[in-house]
């Protein structure tokens, strides 16, 4: 195991985060605060309690999840796409480092960054609503699993993309709609039955539901199923990454 190399890439990626601290950390905090003001305070005050908590508290897990998804994808996809774009990837490819180590370093850094932001958003939320976390350990587990899974997903997009447009298209056309329709701002119980069934095909539903369960102790979907589905996505992403490296897809000719 080339620990020096993993550490070098990881630190390099983290340094990039701190160099762009405004864009990386402050902007998600601001946008989340806006969601709280608009949905939590302005609209939420007219909505009755859901699952025994105020609407503001109800949307906290959803908001964190939504940021976690989009940021994990953008961090990881950009992290691997940019060296491809500038050509500096040659150095990583010619280094005595295994594919597993490359993934560990890039995905590890991207996931670390989104977990940090997730926690910052959680702290921000505490200013707006009364937070209670029923199952702190499960909350952290979901946070980490989701960050890692979607960082892997972002890594795949970053490798697949051969232009900045492609880099944006998946997050914009697929992830954003799934996140909004995944129960971020509502419980899927509120939907007509048909849409409830359709929603069960949306992976984000399981993430948000499981994460929300760790906060308020109740959920749309059974926690066991949520956890199983989250792990399933993780394994699926790992399988794709393994295939990419075995074939050299878009990395090596």
């Amino acid at each position, binding site marked *: 195991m*080339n620990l*020096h*190399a993993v*550490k*070098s*890439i990881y630190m*390099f990626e983290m*340094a*990039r985060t701190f*160099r762009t601290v405004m864009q990386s950390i402050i902007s998600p905090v601001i946008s989340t605060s806006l969601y709280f003001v608009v949905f939590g305070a302005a609209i939420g005050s007219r909505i009755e309690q859901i699952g025994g908590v105020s609407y503001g508290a109800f949307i906290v897990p959803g908001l964190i999840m939504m940021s976690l998804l989009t940021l994990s994808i953008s961090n990881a996809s950009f992290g691997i796409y940019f*060296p491809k774009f*500038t*050509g*500096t990837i*040659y*150095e*990583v*490819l*010619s*280094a*005595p*480092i*295994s594919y597993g180590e490359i993934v560990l370093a890039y995905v590890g850094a991207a996931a670390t960054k989104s977990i940090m932001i997730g926690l910052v958003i959680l702290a921000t939320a505490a200013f707006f609503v009364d937070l209670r976390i029923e199952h702190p350990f499960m909350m952290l587990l979901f946070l980490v699993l989701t960050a890692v899974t979607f960082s892997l997903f972002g890594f795949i997009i970053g490798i697949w993309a051969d232009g900045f447009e492609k880099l944006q298209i998946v997050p914009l056309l697929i992830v954003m709609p799934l996140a909004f329709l995944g129960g971020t701002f509502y419980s899927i119980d509120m939907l007509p039955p048909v849409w409830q069934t359709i929603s069960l095909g949306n992976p984000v539903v399981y993430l948000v539901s499981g994460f929300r369960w760790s906060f308020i102790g109740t959920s749309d979907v059974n926690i066991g199923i949520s956890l199983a589905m989250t792990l399933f996505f993780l394994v699926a992403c790992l399988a794709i990454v393994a295939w990419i490296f075995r074939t*050299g897809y878009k990395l*090596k*000719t």
Partner: protein
Amino acid sequence: MTAAVSITNLSKTYATGFTALKGVDLEVRKGEIFALLGPNGAGKTTLIGIVCGIVNATGGTVLVSGHDVVSEYRKTRSLIGLVPQEVSIDAFESVWNTVSFSRGLFGKGPNPAHIEKVLKALSLWDKKDEKVLNLSGGMKRRVLIAKALSHEPEILFLDEPTAGVDVELRRDMWEMVRGLRETGVTIILTTHYIEEAEEMADRIGVINHGEIILVEEKRTLMRNLGKKQLRLELLSPVDALPETLAGRGLELADGGATLVYSYDTHGERTGITALLGDLNQAGLRFRDLETRQSSLEEIFVNLVKERA
């Protein structure tokens, strides 16, 4: 002694169907400067890419210091430093950070003293805190070399190191490469500048259309393939060669003012003495004479033409 790089029957066909390498065999000795010479698109960069692990080979094997580049990639890659053709470095990093990053990437623990030595040797020391973004093109190229040397490689690949580089930097680079050889580093450089191969290399391999046409000591190459010419400047120009001088391979040049005699420096006899005697008999007087040897460039052009 194990060869620094040993390539056997290496081939590469890209997904587009383009065959970049056709069964290349090549051996580079430890401690030499080897120049791989060939026109653009000959397969030089592909060859380097395979040795360094950036390109997957279609067939054949590559050993670096006796280790296979595929099954023992950790070992072989840690021995190699690569200076790519394109100037691609992270623009927002400082020189010091990007060079230190490379060292770590190649599995070596931090060693500020070594990084300092490399940066000083490349006249980059006073720029160490500068962002790469703010450096000139030549400086960026030096940074690429510093990155390649950061992990103390035994073998250094320089892919077109002086393409688009000014004369001064080119001289500096040559100096540096010679200095590295002194310390025992094997250097493999690709170039399409003959001048560069002629100036630097111990041995030269010529590659064209994915095939190694020949590998030769530079001196042998120049001697074997080098024709010498004797040019005689005549006192008074002539319209045609006298009959007595026909069949000797003589040519008239400069509108009859110069007589050109080509000969092989390796022949038992060059025929110069006899020629001069015959010229005297034919009543041709000359003002001046010079001999010149064909440059590597001429040799190269001839080789590539022959095979085309």
